[in-house]
């Protein structure tokens, strides 16, 4: 008990804070090392895309893992943010930064609408509804090709006017750290408890005074805004945007990353995304077989490691009981003794 108190300064657990800050510093220094070693810019690109996916996977894990809302709409909100920024730039010559802000806000607005509409729907129905929503959006963006350029792709202003990959790397790193910080603060606060209470038992939570409607919509809006923000930033970097980002494959990749990382831990989900994205890049010579491996890994993780593959490792590295011990599935199962 005393060692635990000593390891805390003003409520911040040093055993978490130190490794995490070390990682962030490492990520900040990585480009210097990479440039010094002469590593191809291609790997910068891989790292940038990995951080984009990490932001999305973490936001999905907040929505689905913490709050228990199984939405398949993360990519749709991402696309709303990106298309808003792109179309405003294209037609109204709105700058990059205001475009990103407006894209984030519009994604949040759509999150509000969809979150409010789907309040009654649970699990499967919500999953089906959000799949339908993102498919309608994709078909609409394809059909209205006079405005969106459809499959030819909407050109986007470059994020920064340079061919170097270093500035976009830092922008994406900042985006990831900011997104994680906001979400982490959220789940560490009372809101996190409310989300989990609603996930476990909506009626019981409501009976105990949790404003279920407010928090369900709130978490939908927050995660939509983070997805929209990530989309707007990332596609200014990619400079071209097609409705293909809404293909179900893209959403499956985000979900798989979060599940393999650890669906109930934001940081594990983000790490899962980074590891898997690099893994998929390294496995490129395997062509389509790498996606087969990926699908199999998803099924096996779900069946045998429900807390994800990376989450237990992270727990070990952080030498901590758990990032949030009580959130991880530890419910007693029928026909089993006391859980460890």
């Amino acid at each position, binding site marked *: 008990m005393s060692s635990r108190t000593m390891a805390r300064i003003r409520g911040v657990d040093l055993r978490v804070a130190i490794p995490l800050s070390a990682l962030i510093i490492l990520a900040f220094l990585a480009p210097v090392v990479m440039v010094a070693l002469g590593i191809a810019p291609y790997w910068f690109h891989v790292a940038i895309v990995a951080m984009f996916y990490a932001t999305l996977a973490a936001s999905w894990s907040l929505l*689905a893992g913490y709050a*228990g809302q*199984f939405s398949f709409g993360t990519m749709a909100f991402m696309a709303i943010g990106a298309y808003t920024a792109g179309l405003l730039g294209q037609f109204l010559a709105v700058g990059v930064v205001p475009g990103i802000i407006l894209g984030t806000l519009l994604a949040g607005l759509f999150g509000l609408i969809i979150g409010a*509409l*789907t309040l*009654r*729907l649970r*699990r*499967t*129905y919500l*999953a*089906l*509804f959000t*799949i*339908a*929503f993102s*498919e*309608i959006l994709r*078909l*609409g963006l*394809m*059909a*209205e090709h006079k405005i969106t350029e459809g499959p030819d792709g909407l050109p986007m202003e470059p994020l920064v006017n340079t061919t170097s990959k270093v500035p976009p790397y830092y922008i994406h790193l900042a985006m990831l750290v900011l997104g994680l910080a906001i979400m982490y603060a959220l789940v560490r606060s009372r809101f996190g408890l409310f989300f989990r209470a609603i996930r476990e038992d909506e009626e019981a939570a409501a009976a105990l005074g949790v404003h279920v409607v407010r928090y369900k919509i709130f978490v939908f809006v927050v995660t939509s805004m983070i997805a929209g923000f990530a989309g707007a930033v990332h596609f200014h970097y990619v400079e071209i945007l097609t409705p293909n980002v809404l293909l*179900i*494959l893209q959403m*499956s990749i985000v*979900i*798989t990353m979060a*599940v393999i990382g650890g669906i109930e831990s934001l940081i594990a989900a983000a790490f899962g995304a980074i590891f898997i994205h690099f893994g998929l890049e390294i496995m490129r010579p395997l*062509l*389509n*077989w790498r*996606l*087969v491996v*990926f*699908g*199999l890994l*998803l*099924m096996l993780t*779900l*069946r045998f490691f*429900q807390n994800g593959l990376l989450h237990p490792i992270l727990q070990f590295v952080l030498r901590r009981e758990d990032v949030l011990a009580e959130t991880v*599935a530890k*419910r007693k*199962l*029928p*026909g*089993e003794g006391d859980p460890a």
Partner: protein
Amino acid sequence: MLIFDQCIESISYLATLLTNGLIMGIIYALMALGLTLIFSVLGIVNFSHGELYMIGGFVAFFLLDAFEGLNPILAILSAGLATFVIGAIFERLFLRPMHQGKVQRTGEYAILVTFGFAFFLQYLSLAIIGPFPFKASRFVDLAIKPLFGVIRVFQTRVVAAAIALILIAILLWFIQRTWTGRGLRAVSQDKDAAAVTGINPLRMNNFAFGLGAALAGMSGAVLVQVFSWTFNVGIPAASKSYVVIVLGGMGSIPGALLGGLILGAVESLGTGCFPDPSRGLAYQSAFGLVIFALVLLIRPQGLFGRKL
């Protein structure tokens, strides 16, 4: 605007759209029946339904390709058998543990694991078969004259719908009149009560999933002569099946039949009557999805749903 005017003024144009829509609707109903069967017995939505449909189509295609003059009926039945086995194995390995308390959060698990299976099957067939589309030749050669002299129909689709009708009839007979069918219905109504009367719910789950998968596979086999076939052909097919079962009510067989017909008609009329024909075609699937979203919002239990 030409097509739009035609839609208002010409009865024969409207009748053509409606007839063709209903023909597709019968096929949608067959696809959705498998999904609704799985939902009613296991209580889960199978997100890999479209991929089993895709595999059924490929099995039929390669059999017909390998054995010249093979009876298409045999090819369809083999496709059903193959997908039955695949479905039953998957159920045994990944879904049965849910009912034995080996998995937590079964609702979320079922969504994700069937979704993962879909992903796996899709890219497995891409890796094995490749990305190129295949087109099977017609099952039968017969010329169909326009009905009443004005309503033109697609020959391949009519054949597909006829086979689908026969399969639906066999399925209904099986569910209503045989002991196994009664067992399935008993488990779907009350698992524990069924177990008391000597039905093994776990075996029924396994059988229901296999049968649902076989229905998906057979509808794929029936349609392989209609559309060109690729590894990702299951995605739109599955989304249509979801629309149908949500519209009809999850787990309801009459709902799946009626829902299929409604979806077919709406898609056909929506596409044919959209003011701008090129965009109308692009929006074809969107019409169904809009209905779907509306049903979920206004009446989530669908037309014949038991409860939500």
